[in-house]
């Protein structure tokens, strides 16, 4: 019983932390985008207003049970990956489920939510949703390949599939894996561009073409859960990158600095990019990123 309470408590604290950091990042990225476009932009806390406004709004319609459950599926992915990924080094925080799953489990739980939400978007009957979903799924097939190649390279180089072990290796040797496995890092970062769905990979929910795609027909509490799961999931993904490539973090400040630097990669790349068509973006991921992934595997296997 005590164990369950501890897990629940850990989940709540991690969730709240991820929620605040994730939403703040969203706000900051809006400011950065605005400054690049020579605008002033909203204040950094604007997204908190947005998200609480959505929560306080009444939602009066739904299109059926899958539509109703879709955002909950998305939340499962966000919170589960947050619980699997260690937030700080050396177990100085709640260990949550860090020792219960490994990288392969994480890869699969990370697609659980998008697929569940895709079902929810499908039931709304809005053709834009379904079109967005087919584009999103195609893009997943694109960027998962370099992403998995990078992870497989790490796994075979260090003979472990556990995230905690990868962090311990970095702590012991004092070298970040982004320097010892540079190709894996490059492949993973390129895959990250697709994961965060900023331009040029934002065809999935392109507002001008698809009326925000899978998100259309969602408002109020549904959009609230989706938005907060997006924030939590973004934080979890960034923490994962920090954990396996950048030596993890010992305290919150280091974590925030490292994740923010990482987060700026897709944001800044996105601001100056046009939008790819789906097949262009899929082909992009099967091109250079996959080549870097291949180099990473070769390096891990033979060096």
């Amino acid at each position, binding site marked *: 019983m005590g164990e369950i309470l501890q*897990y629940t408590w850990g989940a709540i604290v991690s969730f709240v932390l991820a929620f605040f950091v994730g939403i703040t990042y969203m706000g900051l990225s809006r400011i950065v985008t605005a400054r690049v476009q020579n605008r002033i932009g909203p204040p950094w806390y604007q997204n908190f207003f947005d998200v609480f406004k959505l929560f306080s709004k*009444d*939602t*009066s*319609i*739904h*299109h*059926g049970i899958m539509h*109703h459950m879709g*955002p*909950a*599926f998305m*939340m499962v992915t966000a919170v*589960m990956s947050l*619980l699997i990924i260690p937030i700080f080094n050396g177990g100085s925080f709640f260990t949550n*489920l860090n*020792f*219960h*799953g*490994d990288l*392969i*489990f994480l890869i*699969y*739980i990370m*697609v659980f939510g998008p*697929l569940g939400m*895709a*079902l929810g978007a*499908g*039931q709304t*009957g809005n*053709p*834009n949703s*379904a079109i967005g*979903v*087919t*584009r999103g*799924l*195609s893009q*997943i*097939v*694109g960027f*998962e*390949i370099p992403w998995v*190649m990078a992870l*497989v*390279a790490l796994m*075979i180089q260090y*003979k472990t599939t556990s995230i905690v072990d990868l962090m311990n290796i970095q702590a012991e040797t004092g070298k970040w894996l982004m320097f010892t496995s540079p190709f894996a890092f490059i492949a993973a970062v390129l895959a990250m561009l697709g994961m965060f769905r900023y331009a040029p990979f934002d065809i999935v929910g392109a507002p001008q073409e698809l*009326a925000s795609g899978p998100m259309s*027909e969602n408002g*109020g*509490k549904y959009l609230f*859960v989706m938005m907060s799961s997006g924030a939590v999931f973004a934080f979890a993904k960034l923490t994962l990158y920090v954990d396996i490539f950048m030596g993890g973090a010992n305290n919150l400040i280091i974590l925030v600095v490292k994740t923010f630097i990482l987060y700026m990669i897709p944001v800044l790349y996105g601001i100056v990019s046009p939008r790819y*068509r789906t*097949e262009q973006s*899929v082909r992009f991921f099967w091109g250079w990123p996959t080549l870097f*992934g291949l180099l990473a*595997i070769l390096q891990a*296997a033979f060096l």
Partner: protein
Amino acid sequence: MNMIFILFAVLLGGALLTFFSNKVSGLLRDIFFLLTVLAAGVFFYLFIKKGDTVSFSLAGLNLQWGLNAFGWYFSLIVLGLSTLAAFYALAYMRGKERLGYFYFNFLVSILSMLGILMSRDLVSFFVFWEIMTWSSYFIVIYNGKNVQRNGINYIIFSTIGAYAMLTAIVLVYTNTDSLIISDMITSYPQFTPVLQIFVPILFLMAFSVKAAMMPLHVWAPDAYSNSPMAYSSVFSGALSKMGIYGMIIVFVTMISYLPDSTWFKEIFAWLGAITAIMGTLWAVSQDDARKLLAYSSIAQLGYIITGVAIGTELAMLSALFLAVLHGLFKGALFMAVGAIERQTGTVNFTEVTGLIRKMPWTFIASLLAIIALAGIPPLGGFVGKWMLYESLINSNHYILVIAIFFASTAAFLYCYKFLFGFFLGQEEKEWEHVKEAPALMVVPMMILAIGTVVLGTFPGIILKPADIAMQSLGYAPTEGHLWSMSVLFNEWGDQVLLKPLVYAIAGIFLFFLILLTVKGWKTMRYVTTKDISSSGEVPLEDENLTFSINFFQPFMRAAGPVMKKRMITYYREFGKAIDILFDFTRRIYNGNGQTYAIYVMIFLVILLLLKNNLFG
């Protein structure tokens, strides 16, 4: 009388009774059919023990039948799936023609599959193999559509496989003077090197045809999709596993003894991976649900073949686990397609749409089966996929693991297409009348789907017999260091503890579901899928906004280059070349007496001219 004989007598007698009682009454036929399947199952598990063998001699050949743990494991798939499919068939086949014929072949193919699993000698193995081919062939051509294309493709490839197997059997018999399989295995290391390579290749050819491995898969999409769905679930779920069964035996008992067997295993592992990739890509491009599932079966069998070919403990465990799981989810999916076919009259994604509220139970069964197929935790598919990946990584197959991963990621696309095409999307007036399928159809698929859920948390239920089956093939016990009831380990000692993960997933899901449901519960109401805003307008009732044509067009554009050439075109070219050859021979043997007279004359002239050289 030995119990094994009685089992076969029950099945054959039941099949005949079913066939002849068809003339008397439909009810009697159904009763006999169901009783036979149930009796066979009960009899098999109650009276036939692992290790039972019976030897007898027939026409001067020493034959042997018996059951070992490995065969017993596969009997779980055969009997489990067949029993459920039998119940399903009663409702699915109601009102169709020539039911005696169908049920007879259904029962005979169960008999032949059990026969294959219990054959301890090569002759009965071959005979049962042929019975299996023929009984399934008769069901493939049952509906009488496109017999030329579907039936001939299937039977030609099966015949090629059968000839290969027969050649191998003859080769083995001339070298060992015995037809008992265990004799073949013990004397295999003493074969000549050429024979050591040829015998397994010939056997594997036969097994690859049934397991639909590239490039011998050409028959499968048509054959799977044209059988009645009640049988397709058995066809794809259990019958194809007989190919896997044979492959495992060949790989473990023969290939492993080859002095340098690595390249052989690599080739087969890669063939499995290519099968998986191509099967998946073709499945994504299908608009016919039966075809989609058929291609998906080919792809899933590709994973299993890869696991078998790698052959480490973990890989073999994953192959055996996936074999059972594929039976579960593909059985359920074929049944779901059958239910939709029966209720709506079509299985085309571009026609039927929005069935979720009309056929909720079929939807739930399909959803669970699809999640298992995609390998998403917390369902059973994840366990099999996890073990396969880890075994590939642990055994240094780095590029292979990426290939497999690509196939299973691309599988998400057709998974979504299946669910969206049938159940989600716009609810059109055309399908308003559709009702849920009868309970006799829904319950079997629900049982199969729930099986995948249970195995997701407690894979030990199936891994235990799989482990025993592997021990009977000479593997070391793996319980405790590779798996326990709900924990998975890889060879580096990393682990996945399924129980807490599944509870956490369920807990988080329920929490947010309750949050979503409770907030604003009273003011919430359901609105139809026509009550949406699209391009700033609310569509009219009769406006069809369903998005289903060219569903994954952008992806197909990206993946197009690899799909330009189809295997079947090569076979067709080959067929044309053979045609030309035969045309040419017909010019020589043109049936004209005058021409033949000239041939004789020419021959004599040549003889006379060369007389001195030849006979001088």
